């Protein structure tokens, strides 16, 4: 369990993190979502004591990170997979972590195995690692102490599709066994498939938070028909509020079944009818962070 309370970080007058509070629960994957520069990495760094907070506090398992006797055994941290001595081998980096935490040396091989780094790859120097290999090594370092809590900053960066799938399954399984997972991303789709709870941050402030189900409910329905105008009219006649999107679809808060019935009665053929899950959350992400999205300024 991670508790963040009123966390604020100011850099010479610029507020990078502004009164951020949220909780990451055990047994759940919490996605920390926000556009570039929103303050995700800064928040995570404060949690693990690498950056001092200007105000507020973060506790992990009820204690501040700095007071943990052997943090690696309780919290696995991956902030930047490239932040390793380039001249060390992958195996050596794991060995340094294993020794610091006082673990049996067999854990090194177990972890290499878990993240699918081969014997040969593990004896290569990290400067010769691909981004994905570094990410795997970083995840291995985070997991080696069998922690109860995982804090991962953009862990899917650089992973291939199979790697992303593998990581998703790994984190799912980890949370199902009671672990707390907090992972950040600026990619909505990535977070959406993996997270149970979402915390959205924009411009240093929390803009939304809750379970994924909560945030998705009310996302509504997307419908498309050749006779778009006629369909819109029919829906309005049935008392359903519709908006038309630039891509030619109609959006409404009504259930898909209700929309289908209206279309049938109006004898309008639909070319598409679906729940607005993905688009809804994406819309929300863009909307909630509109002021902070760099593209927003140009649009």
């Amino acid at each position, binding site marked *: 369990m991670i508790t963040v309370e009123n966390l604020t970080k100011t850099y010479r007058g610029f507020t990078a993190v502004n009164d951020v509070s949220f909780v990451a629960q*055990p047994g759940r994957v919490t996605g920390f979502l926000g556009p570039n520069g929103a303050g995700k*990495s800064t928040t995570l*760094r404060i949690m*693990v*004591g*690498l*950056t*001092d907070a200007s105000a507020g506090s973060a506790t992990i*398992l009820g204690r501040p*990170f*700095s007071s*943990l*006797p*052997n*943090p*690696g*055994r*309780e919290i696995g*941290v991956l*902030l*930047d997979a*490239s*932040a*390793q*001595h*380039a*001249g*060390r081998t992958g195996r*050596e*980096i794991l*060995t*340094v*972590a294993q*020794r*610091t*935490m*006082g673990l049996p040396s067999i854990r090194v091989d177990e972890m290499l195995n878990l993240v699918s780094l081969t014997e040969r790859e593990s004896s290569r*120097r990290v400067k010769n690692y691909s981004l994905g290999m570094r990410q795997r090594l970083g995840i291995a*370092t985070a997991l080696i102490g*069998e*922690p*109860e809590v995982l804090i991962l900053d953009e862990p899917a960066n650089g992973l291939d599709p199979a790697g992303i799938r593998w990581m998703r399954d790994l984190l799912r399984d*980890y*949370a199902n*066994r*009671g*672990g707390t997972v907090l992972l950040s991303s600026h990619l909505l789709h990535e977070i959406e498939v993996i997270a149970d709870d979402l915390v959205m941050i924009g411009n240093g402030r929390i803009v939304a938070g809750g379970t994924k189900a909560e945030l998705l409910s009310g996302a509504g329905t997307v419908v498309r028909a050749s006779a778009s105008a006629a369909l819109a009219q029919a829906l309005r006649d049935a008392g359903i509020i519709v908006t038309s999107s630039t891509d030619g679809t109609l959006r409404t808060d009504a259930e898909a079944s209700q929309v289908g019935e209206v279309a049938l009665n109006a004898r309008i053929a639909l070319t598409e009818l679906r729940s607005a899950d993905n688009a809804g959350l994406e819309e929300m992400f863009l909307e909630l962070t509109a002021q902070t999205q760099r593209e927003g300024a140009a649009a």
Partner: protein
Amino acid sequence: MSTTQEVPVTAPQDTSPHTTHAPIPFTRILGVELRKMFDTRSGFWLMASIAILAVIATAATIIFSPSETLTYGNFAGAIGTPMAVILPIVAILSVTSEWSQRSALTTFTLVPNRQRVISAKLLLTVAIGAASMVLALTVGAVGNLIGTAIAGVDPTWEVSVREVAQIILANEIGVLIGFMLGVLLRSSAGAIVGYFVYSLVLPTISGALASTQQWYADNAGWIDLNWTTFQLFDSTLSRTEWTQLGVASTIWLVIPLTVGLILVRRSEVK
């Protein structure tokens, strides 16, 4: 049922009160930090170069010195010069590589008390400095035996234990200056440049001041750490000179090191 069975629990499966882990002992941090000094190619060769340079300096003395100058003092002097460069660099890199290579991110998340890591590094660089000097002086002694045997003269050992101890102390001051600059600047290039400023530029300025300012010339011993340290190489220090060494070290070493340690504790690691 009289006994309870211990059930092994896999890590994340934990809703019961949290198991408390034993704190990381300082000896373990020492072991890990020592390992980190040798586990990269550059680190390994930096350490190896201490022995290699001692052998080269000794061999050069045997080859190029006329037989009457084959004294242990000359061997020790020939070895001292490369040691005075390499040992501070070992000290600098032990600290700055954490920042230059950004491994500090992992180091300080595994051991959040940064002071413990820095203390371990400090102890190790001082110990390595002493061990290297003992090794180098031993190589010099062997060189003295071989060189004089080849030249067909009797080996001379005019260097006393006290003088050896002073030479080691002088080198340790260099090691500590390197360490201090590493902690203060946290950049490999910056600290190495800083070390050469300390050992080459400051003495020049001090010399220029001494030749123009009579007051400075009379009191330079209290201020010029280089000059004061240099006394360790070839004389018995008076009580005043020891005090001067203490004062100059406080100004140029203890105070900036303290500032550096405070900065390291607070600085943002990213």
